[in-house]
């Protein structure tokens, strides 16, 4: 089975690009920050420097692990779903579910290993730059030398490979299980995330305006809320769609398609909501923080500067990951639908009508994602602003939010339309036979 996995990889290298990219990015981020542990562990590093380095490594390291798992899981789920017919064929030719599982997990492990090894070089450069930032801000002594050691290497490769293997195992189990998947576990997860998120957001009020950690509870709370929203959003979306009278044949089509594909939509909505929420929440909270410091008239402390840098790094990481996941899910979903587009055209749809339906679908998706993402983001921003500056709303206008929405809309609608346009280029009869 492992040989089969390797052969299948060699035959279709393009198919695993997204998985490779998320493994690479994830490993690079983990190794960059974990190498701070290595650096802190060198002989002769003073206690203050060591502590700053370890804190950064632990905070972003934890984030990174979660993200790698999410991103690799999302790309692998899409990949496995695309190959359902191939796996069905294997099953019919006598492969046991365990054998198919070993093939997919084996493939994922190979991809993750390659991604992690490729990430070593960039991670070394990134780690050196990060140490430079800490030294410039005075958090770490100038005398500390950079080191890329066993902690960075082991955790980078280990976490990436483990995350890939686990995600592949779950994805293939979901795909090969014949029975209808249980809805209960998903709902439990959704309510759990929403409840935890609400608790985290509310706990903001337990902090004082000057607490250094004030930003953490609303930020984590908002992320948890957005995960919960992403889990319940397909169901809410179908309910709304039942009452949404979109005009024209393309609108009619789009609504029907979205309703049937609700389960697949969560693969698109998850990164979209996460992106909107994290970007909006973090950027506004940082803006509020900056305004509050300015208002106090004191010069920005080193700690505050450091927090800002870390915040922006985290936003950057999440935004890049969410974009990769979003583009991958949309691209895969739309390519996968080439046969469906062909069938629509054979039933009498012009290419323009097919594209219009895709456009309506992606606009509905964008609106849904932005709505829930903004809701979760606001749940974090409002308590933070209230505690930090005694007014509920940030003093900034909607500019940041509009920018975030523009990026979300551009990525969602752009990717869908470009891929769909490519898909309707082929003659309809050919598209149908190829996909069958």
């Amino acid at each position, binding site marked *: 089975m492992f040989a089969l996995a390797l052969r299948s990889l060699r035959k279709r290298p393009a198919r695993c690009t997204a998985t490779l990219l998320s493994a690479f990015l994830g490993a690079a981020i983990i190794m960059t920050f974990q190498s701070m542990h290595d650096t802190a562990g060198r002989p002769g590093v003073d206690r203050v420097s060591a502590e700053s380095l370890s804190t950064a490594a632990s905070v972003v390291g934890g984030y990174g692990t979660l993200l790698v798992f999410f991103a690799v899981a999302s790309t692998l789920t899409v990949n496995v779903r695309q190959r359902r017919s191939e796996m069905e064929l294997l099953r019919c030719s006598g492969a046991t579910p365990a054998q198919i599982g070993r093939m997919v997990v084996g493939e994922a492990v190979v991809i993750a290993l390659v991604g992690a090894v490729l990430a070593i070089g960039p991670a070394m450069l990134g780690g050196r730059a990060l140490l430079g930032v800490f030294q410039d801000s005075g958090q770490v002594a100038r005398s500390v030398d950079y080191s890329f050691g066993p902690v960075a290497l082991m955790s980078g490769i280990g976490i990436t490979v483990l995350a890939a293997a686990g995600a592949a195992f779950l994805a293939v189990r979901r795909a090969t299980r014949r029975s209808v998947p249980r809805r209960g576990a998903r709902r439990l997860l959704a309510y759990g995330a929403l409840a935890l998120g609400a608790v985290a957001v509310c706990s903001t009020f337990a902090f004082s305006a000057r607490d250094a950690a004030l930003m953490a509870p609303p930020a984590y709370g908002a992320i948890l809320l957005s995960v919960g929203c992403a889990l319940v959003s397909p169901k809410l979306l179908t309910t709304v769609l039942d009452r949404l009278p979109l005009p024209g044949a393309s609108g009619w089509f789009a609504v029907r398609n979205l309703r049937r594909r609700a389960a697949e939509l969560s693969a698109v909505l998850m990164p979209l909501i996460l992106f909107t929420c994290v970007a909006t929440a973090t950027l506004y909270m940082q803006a509020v923080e900056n305004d509050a410091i300015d208002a106090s008239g004191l010069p920005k402390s080193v700690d505050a500067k450091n927090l800002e840098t870390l915040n922006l790094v985290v936003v950057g990481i999440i935004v890049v990951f969410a974009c990769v996941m979003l583009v991958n899910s949309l691209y895969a979903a739309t390519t996968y639908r080439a046969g469906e587009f062909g069938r629509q055209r054979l039933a009498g749809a012009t*290419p323009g009508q097919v594209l219009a339906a895709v456009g309506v679908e992606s606009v509905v998706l964008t609106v849904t994602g932005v709505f829930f993402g903004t809701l979760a983001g606001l749940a974090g921003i409002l308590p933070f602003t209230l505690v930090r500056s005694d007014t509920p709303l940030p003093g900034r206008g909607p500019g940041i939010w509009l920018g975030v929405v523009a990026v979300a809309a551009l990525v969602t609608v752009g990717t869908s339309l470009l891929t769909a346009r490519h898909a309707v280029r082929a003659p309809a009869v050919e598209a149908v036979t190829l996909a069958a």
Partner: protein
Amino acid sequence: MFHRARRTNDPGPAAEALRLVKVGKSYGTGAGAVTALDGVTLGLARGTFTAVMGPSGSGKSTLLQCAAGLERPDSGIVRVDGAEMTGGGEAELTRFRRSRIGFVFQQYNLLPTLTVAQNTILPLKLAGRRVDRARVREVLTAVGLGDRLGHLPDQLSGGQRQRVAIARALVTEPRVIFADEPTGALDTRSARDVLVLLREAVRVHGRTVVMVTHDPVAASYADSVVFLADGRLAGELHAPTVDAVAERLAHLGDDVLLEV
């Protein structure tokens, strides 16, 4: 984008439902080029049921797709219900097809996300035409699926899916219905149902049906059989019987061998 496809002053169906004049089509270029159709000229009267037969690779599917406007012929003229199919974009061809042509495929080609009823009214929706619910129910009842309106395609058997596809092809009241091996994936009994439906479309509703098949029994439901070999017409048989068709097919093989 939703042009009204219904003709306002309908002059009624033309006497000749389909006319092909020297239609040629080849695939590929250079040494690897394949001539799929080699100057086919053919006329089919309104209200007839014609079967197209011939060896695999003889160009039957290509002929049907060119006649139905799903492929563009390299040369020649295609006229459906008196209107010539002209060049232009795919959108224009689609609008040409909508009111004149229905197509039934071996692989059904139903939309998996739409129910039986939604699949059936799809061509009307796309053409921006009014949907008469009673009429849709009537059409689906006629193909024996009046009680499955809300089912999804993957909840149906192959024969039932093909009957949905036929209902979908009938609902726009097209002049010509093309069917490419509509019974190719069905058992004898389901195949019979499908063939009876196609024959009824001709006898009862006055449609013109052109059907590709490999099965002499299926061909015997037609009024006449047109034989194709190497992209050229190779004879015709009126009022075909199963035995006559089988015999002609066997000899068709001989002719092709002799020519080589």
